[in-house]
């Protein structure tokens, strides 16, 4: 077995007196698509933020390619955060080129790449338009483009389909599959079981800051008596979902 690209070892996270993650361990193999599943508030985003060094962990270690992630560690990362946003008052091409350069591309390379991407997603005519003049779906496409523009070896997508219309969702799935085929490692944070079933090799189910289930999709299904992922999700998080809907 290859050395895991991501290792989360006895990760613990507290905010003040609130414990968000109690003791979490998992790893992600190079080239696999890994699903980080859980209901709202289960600690998925916190785990990703700690993995990427945005939050310092309260305990345990989180590494990418053998060391804690730093922006200058040489890993080509594509990260689509749950909280989406870009510079609203700038032109689409300027934002894309800026991020491309920050990710290590030359100005010309970033511009060429951006123009090809805009052509692909049918936004060429929006090249010189301010971002805030674009529709929500168009802005999502731009953000997705920025996420993948450095040909990432590790692609982390936090609730990627959130707010996407069916057309953009299909585009997203196609792009993820392209990166899978190109050998990228994909971490997919979601609670959309249909997408998990279609894309993920292995998954982890988080509940109350702990792993409720962890393994290949097939193994997890088996451990729940062969139920579908939807049923498993309802079984694990049913009470929480009901509580949330009552509230």
């Amino acid at each position, binding site marked *: 077995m290859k050395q895991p690209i991501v290792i989360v070892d006895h990760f613990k996270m507290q905010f003040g007196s609130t414990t968000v993650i109690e003791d979490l361990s998992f790893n992600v193999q190079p080239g696999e698509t890994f699903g980080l599943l859980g209901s709202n508030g289960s600690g998925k985003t916190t785990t990703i933020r700690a993995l990427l060094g945005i939050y310092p962990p309260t305990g345990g270690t989180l590494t990418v390619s053998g060391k804690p992630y730093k922006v200058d560690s040489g890993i080509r990362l594509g990260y689509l955060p749950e909280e989406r946003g870009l510079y609203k008052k700038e032109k689409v091409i300027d934002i894309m080129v800026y991020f491309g350069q920050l990710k290590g591309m030359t100005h010309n390379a970033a511009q060429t790449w951006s123009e090809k991407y805009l052509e692909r997603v049918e936004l060429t005519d929006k090249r010189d338009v301010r971002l805030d003049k674009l529709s929500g779906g168009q802005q999502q496409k731009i*953000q997705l483009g920025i996420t993948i523009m450095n040909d990432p070896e590790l692609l982390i997508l936090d609730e990627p389909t959130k707010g996407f219309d069916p057309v953009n969702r299909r585009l997203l799935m196609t792009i993820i599959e392209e990166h899978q085929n190109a050998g990228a490692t994909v971490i997919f944070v979601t609670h959309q079981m249909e997408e998990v079933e279609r894309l993920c090799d292995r998954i982890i189910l988080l509940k109350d800051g702990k792993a409720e289930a962890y393994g290949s999709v097939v193994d997890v299904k088996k451990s729940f008596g062969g139920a579908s992922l939807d049923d498993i999700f309802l079984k694990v998080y049913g009470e929480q979902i009901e509580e949330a809907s009552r509230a």
Partner: protein
Amino acid sequence: MANKSRRLPVHNLTTVFRFEVMRTLKKKSFWIMALAFPLLIGAIIAIVFFSNKTTQKAVSETKNQQFSLGITDKSGMITQAVFDAYKIKQIPDRVSGISDVTAGKLDAYFYVPTNLATQSIEIHANDVGLFNNSRYQSVVSSILSSSASATVSSDVAMVLQNRVKYESTTYKDGKKYDGFKQVIAPGVFLVMFYLVIAFFGNQMLTSTTEEKENRVIEMILTTIEARTLIIGKILSLIVLATIQICLILIPIVVAYMFARSQLSIPDIDLRSIPLNPARIAVGVGLFMSSFLFFTGILTSIGAAVPTAKEAGGFLGIVMIMIFGPLYAVTLFVSSPHTPLVTFLSYFPLTAPIPLMLRNAVGNLSYPAAILGITILSISAVLALGLAIRLFRYGALEYSRRLNIREIFSRKP
């Protein structure tokens, strides 16, 4: 679509710097703000220019204007030669004079009483408008002055007419010393600091709130170091401030070069302005350390609050701290060793103005200047460190103000 000609994501400072400068320069609001002040100066210069020109024209016209004049001179001061020169009609009594004016026979009548030390000269004249009515007083004053001068020597006349010229030379430590000119070169840094903070305070304050408000922070923090972003932004602010200062200075220099006399600008030979290298060096040190300190403070505030609007509320407090000491300006000049001046000079939040002002007027000793620069430099490093930490660990607090204790309790 993958690009193979890429470098690893290091040294992004120039990218951030260029992006921040270019996008600000592309904003209409920047140019409106940047040009508003020089345009205002230009407008004031134009108003002063035309006002002076019009006044000079009016004075000249008034001087040459002929109007009929009558005087009753009870003092006996006015000589016959003056009566003749000014073509003045001698009126025997006050009542006749006033009646000649009201009847339209005379434009003006002056009653000069016996004792000028205790009594007033009366002026009775046709109304020629609010501003032009003052010409009558000028004329009577001129008549009396000419008459008085005729009775004394030319030197005494010069003294009486306050036309004696003066040329003063002051000395300090046995050498010629022009206190006013000495202020100019080191004083430039005080003016620059004032302008930079006044024009860019708000931009410094909101420079870090944008990433937060636009929710772009996570993508930024996983792409570049917070330190790189903050330093890139600060460098861009320095460049933008320099552009702003140039835009302010250009019309002033143009006015000085081409319209000095029309604008009544003092005729100072620029080559005669003393350049004391040590005081200029102190000025540079104070300006740079003060600028960085307040940039750090304002950036920290921006990083600690969720929105630009909320950040704006703190700007007033910071401005009071910086510019409040200006109210004690006479104290800094006349009593630089009082405890209050010492406190204001070394307390980081109030130090820039007192230190730069005292350096300009020459009562800041070099040890005191070094101490001040050291305090401000250390404060600047701490403030910038705080700004980076707040941005790094507080950036994801989208909806609430940061708790400083919470930020510092986090492990790096």
